[in-house]
């Protein structure tokens, strides 16, 4: 069945983290690779600070722009605690990429609830493929703290069969000229962090 060929990627995080831009870039790389692609996110109420998710699905033919629960191959969580909210979307054998960034929700700020402890441990107890990334540190290294989203794309790219030159091309086209170089650097740093890790 052709459905088997559809790759499902879910990005999760908090408003303002650059998830929409990142999922746009991923979708365009898939399109440039000659594949069918659909992506979906919901924006609206959450101008700032609410949860944001973006589904990207690509393959020979894609119908639904949203993945169903239990069908996601890779979850990229831009914020640590947001990983927990979407675990039911994951395939049991799926890959979870967790950014170390912690952004406290209001109830934690108000001291009403606690930021969950040992999220990585919890996730690792369920999924065998878990990668933890300090995108903040790598982004600083790349020269722009705002490039965390591109770092995470670099990390993600190491697990997808989409060609590097296409990533670079789409990244070049997606940022204003003065930000292109740092974002290319961010992509490389993110990708290299996984290549080293897997050696």
């Amino acid at each position, binding site marked *: 069945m052709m459905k088997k060929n559809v790759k499902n990627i879910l990005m999760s995080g908090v408003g303002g983290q650059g998830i929409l831009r990142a999922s746009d870039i991923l979708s365009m790389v898939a399109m440039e690779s000659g594949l069918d692609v*659909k992506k979906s996110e919901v924006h*609206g*109420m959450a101008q700032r*600070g609410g949860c944001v998710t973006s589904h990207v699905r690509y393959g020979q033919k894609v119908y639904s722009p949203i993945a169903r629960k239990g069908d996601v191959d890779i979850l990229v969580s831009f914020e640590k605690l947001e990983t927990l909210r979407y675990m*039911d979307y994951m395939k049991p054998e799926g890959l979870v990429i967790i950014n170390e960034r912690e952004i406290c929700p209001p109830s934690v700020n108000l*001291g009403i609830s606690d930021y969950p402890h040992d999220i990585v441990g919890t996730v690792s107890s369920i999924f065998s493929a878990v990668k933890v990334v300090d995108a903040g540190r790598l982004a600083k290294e790349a020269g722009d703290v705002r490039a965390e989203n591109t770092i995470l794309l670099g990390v993600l790219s190491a697990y997808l069969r989409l060609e590097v030159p296409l990533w670079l091309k789409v990244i070049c086209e997606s940022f204003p000229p003065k930000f292109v170089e740092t974002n290319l650097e961010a992509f490389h740093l993110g990708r290299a962090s996984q290549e080293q890790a897997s050696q």
Partner: protein
Amino acid sequence: MNNIGGCVRMKVLMSGNEAIARGAYECGVRFVAGYPGTPSTEIVETFAQYQDVYAEWSPNEKVALESGIGAALAGARATVVMKHVGVNVAADPLFTVSYTGTNGALVIITADDPSLHSSQNEQDNRNYAKFAKIPMLEPSDSEEARRYIKIAFEMSEMFDTPVFLRTTTRVSHSKSIVYPEAPLSREDALRLEVNPGKYVMVPINARHRREEVEKRIQRLKDFAETFSENKMELNNTETGIITSGMSYNYAKDAFPDLSYLKLGMVYPLPVKMIKKFASEVRKLYVVEELDPYIEEQVMAMGIKVIGKEVFPYTGEFDPGVIAASMGGSKQPVPASLPDISIPPRPPNLCPGCPHRGLFYVLGKLNVFVSGDIGCYTLSYMKPLEGLHSCICMGASIGMAHGMSKALGEKGRGRVVGVIGDSTFIHSGITSLLNSVYNKSDIVIVICDNRTTAMTGMQEHPATGFTLSGERTKELDFSALASALGVENIRIIDPYDLKSTRTVMKEELSKPGPSLIISRRSCVLFKRREKELRVPMRVNPETCIGCKLCLGLGCPPISWVKDGMTAKKGKGKRKKQEGVAKIDQELCIGCTLCQQVCKTGAIIEVNAE
């Protein structure tokens, strides 16, 4: 990159909204009007990027539709854009333009919001098509969105009728591949046509046009039978599915091998085609989000069909929902998860949001705050709890008026109506006038953040700029209010808590109506006055852990437990459990927390 206008690439990734604007541009739309509203907003914003298309923000959806009708009567191709509830506002002209017909072309775009991602209700606007006898097309992805709007214009001209194009949030906001075409060069037949029998809807003429509507619907029913976007896909004929829009994609994803009747036009329905399809399959389902709109019509054709007996009435679908409802498909099994409580992350007012100060004050006065729709509605939540009702855009002032009249003496100084600047212009002006005319005893507050923030910073008549960024007249709220007869008009800065509280109390003690304009630009506003503001920090030495600053619900302020149960020393509380902390990267220095702090523990970052 999406190359708008000019030369285009063969293949572009576009949202449904961008694709609608693209399609309309390609077929020579001349006039566009709309009022912002999720999920429709980006359609009008995209038009603004096409140089040759005239597009404007209207003050509300009724004005948008009426302007669109005018443009169409002059022979143009016109489109008007709104979210589902916007059609309620525009419903009055809607029902009668169905009678007059359009002369040129008029396409009404309604963007529905199953699951209420950003809406106050979940109404199914397919009902409007049937109710107002206006044909409706429903695309299922971006490429169809681009093609269907062109078909909609052609149908409008061919049948002399307004045509609806309906999207849902998932169609509007999902991106998929689009194959743009070059724009047509076409001449509109623009002219002033005087035809009172057709356009003056007094009873004698309207009765005649009413007959014409029925004839037109009959012609449209015939058209539907051969319409190329009503498509039958016969595969496994054990089970057949009638569906349309995004539901088609969900169903195909879950059951790629079944037979489908995909309806590109959901009003009027192709009766013969449906009967034919029903006869081809053994078991028939209708897969549709929200109301059993198609289902009931199919049942009325005397066809046995399964619909809402298995599918949910509420919320949007996804392939999983359809598979679970119909059964028989192999469902993916998610990993089993431990039971952990995950703190929710609701949307919140931004750091430095001007609404915060106003609602902090309102939440502490013993008043009923009749609220409205906009970012400020979020202040109903803890810890501000400064807003107590919200029904629809513009309702605040009217509701406050009715409430104070009903309460009489008991309500004196106790009822406040609060409305955003864009919302006031949308539908608050007449109710302000009413509160003067009928001598209302209320205080009305316009939270004037100089923009339409909730939907992403659109211009409106009080910003002084048009959609395309051109300068224009700027509505003066106090001049308007005094012209309406309001005598007590005050302007406050919601960053100044003390005077906000004082003015509020003064106005509540007077016989109403009073108008308070709470003025301060949205923090995300692009033309915001450049101010040198310094972020705040907490001096842990003087913080007594009273949590007053946390009562502002400002995202940078958090609580750090420090385990010190019995701190000694000056000003310390006996049982202090922690101190407040401010994230300097998020703080913009509005100073509200400094103003509420009783011990002077909140200071500028660089203060000693």
